[in-house]
């Protein structure tokens, strides 16, 4: 027994606790969060910003000290103070409350419009790229035609037809980003469908729907996630831009873009916080979403899961009878 245990005792370092990765590895969500923090600290920071944004959006009514359209005529254009943390605007409305409610509006518009755009992109991109041929030809020429128009012209025309409002903005931005985004999805479908495993699925007798959903879609998830996060940020910016031009969600709704243009621009010199604060809020939100998206893309790719490989080696080691004997010997020693 001792002859066998001696080399093992020398080579195996005595570690009382397995490394963090392995302890977290058993729970999927915890393991994912653990790896996110360890491997992608910036991404984890971005995720924290996203969660903060979401929570602010959901609990806006609780967090905000005042309603977003609560007017205090006496306290107009007050600088940030203990009473009004981020100051007040020209109507004496609390900027902090408006930013918090604006987060709610931004979250709703951003997620709804981006989700719509991603669904459109994925459906057009995957079908057009996978089927190819005449279908691809026709659908891509339609996309070309759509993309020929500058975004702003489409937006102005659409808003003037549909009228301003929250759902109009969502639908227009969703369509706009969805159709142009389909190109990105299509191009990665074109490369994915060349893979032998797609041929394998076809020759196996898998249905087209199965191939699209089980093989093509997961393998184009990386660009789709990147698309989602960049578009999420872009939609927030676009909505702000629309509101800035007066084509977005009409006042008094507290859109960040609207605050920037209507109030911020007019009183830029008397009350700079009116422009700075919505701008900073926008910047932080867009930055956080982008960072989180980049990290998410990398983490969701199984080839980049370092911890998985580590656990595999550990599993093989556990399966080998000689090492089990060694461990038993080590314990009795």
């Amino acid at each position, binding site marked *: 027994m001792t002859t066998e245990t001696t080399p093992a005792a020398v080579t195996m370092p005595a570690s009382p606790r397995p490394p963090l990765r392995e302890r977290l590895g058993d729970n999927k969500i915890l393991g994912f969060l653990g790896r996110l923090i360890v491997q992608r600290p910036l991404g984890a920071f971005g995720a924290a910003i996203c969660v903060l944004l979401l929570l602010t959006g959901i609990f806006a009514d609780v967090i905000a000290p005042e309603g977003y359209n609560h007017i205090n005529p006496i306290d107009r254009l007050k600088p940030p103070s203990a009473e009004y943390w981020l100051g007040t605007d020209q109507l004496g409305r609390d900027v902090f409350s408006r930013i918090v409610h604006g987060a709610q509006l931004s979250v709703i518009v951003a997620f709804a419009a981006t989700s719509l755009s991603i669904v459109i992109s994925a459906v057009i991109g995957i079908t057009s790229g996978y089927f190819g041929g005449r279908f691809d030809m026709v659908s891509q020429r339609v996309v070309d035609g759509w993309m020929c128009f500058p975004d702003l012209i489409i937006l102005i025309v659409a808003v003037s037809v549909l009228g301003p409002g929250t759902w109009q903005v969502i639908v227009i931005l969703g369509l706009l980003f969805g159709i142009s985004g389909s190109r990105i999805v299509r191009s990665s479908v074109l490369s994915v469908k060349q893979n032998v495993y797609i041929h394998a699925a076809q020759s196996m007798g898998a249905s087209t729907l199965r191939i699209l959903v089980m093989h093509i879609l997961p*393998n184009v998830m990386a660009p789709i996630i990147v698309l989602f996060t960049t578009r999420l940020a872009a939609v927030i910016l676009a909505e702000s831009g629309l509101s800035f031009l007066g084509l977005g969600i009409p006042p008094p709704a507290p859109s960040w873009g609207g605050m920037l243009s209507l109030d911020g621009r007019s009183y830029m010199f008397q009350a700079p916080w009116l422009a700075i604060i919505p701008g900073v809020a926008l910047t932080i939100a867009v930055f956080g979403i982008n960072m989180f998206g980049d990290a998410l893309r990398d983490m969701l790719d199984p080839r980049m899961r370092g911890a998985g490989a580590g656990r595999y080696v550990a599993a093989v080691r556990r399966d080998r009878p000689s090492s089990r004997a060694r461990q038993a010997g080590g314990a009795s020693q």
Partner: protein
Amino acid sequence: MSDTPLLEVRNLKVHFPLPGTLLKPKSGGSVKAVDGVSFHLNRGETLGLVGESGCGKSTTGMAVLRMTPVTAGEIHLEGNNITDLKGRSLRTLRRKMQMIYQDPFGALDPRMRVLDIIGEPLKVHNLVSGRKAYRAEVMRLMELVGLLPGMAERYPHEFSGGQRQRIGIARALAARPEVIICDEPVSALDVSIQAQIINLLKDLQEELGLTYLFVAHDLAVVRHICDRVMVMYLGHVVEVADSEELYTNPQHPYTQALLSAIPIPDPRAESRREVDPSIEGEVPSPVNPPSGCPFHPRCKHAMETCRTVAPELKDTTQGHAVSCHLYEPTSAAMPQIRVASMA
């Protein structure tokens, strides 16, 4: 073994039309990848398909799988004509024919766990019901090909080339197919791993009574695993024979040249080995194949008839068929080539 072969291919032709130009959308030309190939495959045997790159051996395999459009000819599986099946009946047919791929890295979906890769044919064809039965079946398959059950939750990138090829084999076996088409299953692997995989394929054949169509260019591997060997050249079958017969008594000049190109492991013998010069150089373009016998521009025995008349595949002895004018019963040159092949 019944009289009707498991798989029968008659006068198969696969021509790929060449892309035309904008002004002339149909150029009229085509690549004649497979041009009149006939063969049969008996249950439980391994038929090797050898030839140089571009001779149409892989395309033949693809056509049999119905993965590439067939220009002409018929494919029969278990006596049923499968050449024109479409849609649902074609997908049902696919269960009976599975494929093992050359590239073990590309053939597995990197986003799927091994459990789902191997089990996919089970799901596609509804072969098991319930999570438990599914898992048990995948475990059985993994054990069959020599994979540890603990590997089921891993992703393909965590495996070596040989292990991935085992995963591919397990997937091919999952649907319990009648025919497995192996498209160069070992040429992307290390030599030591090649032997393991070849032996695995042989063991599985003995155990499960599998039938292989084995496409390869490695003649030594083919000799080891195949019962019969079919030599292809430029889309045509030039010689078919039992494996030992073909290697000891090659008759077609192309087969002789091909066999002379096998390197010998002994360096001294290798330095004395003479490669038939006719095998050097390029295969003619399949777009514009030579008239008559496709091999005549490179053949050292080429005669006048070879330039004009295409030879037919004819039995010279029982189970040994050659497509060459030298072996026509009337040909006077026959004894001559016998001597040539001995030298």
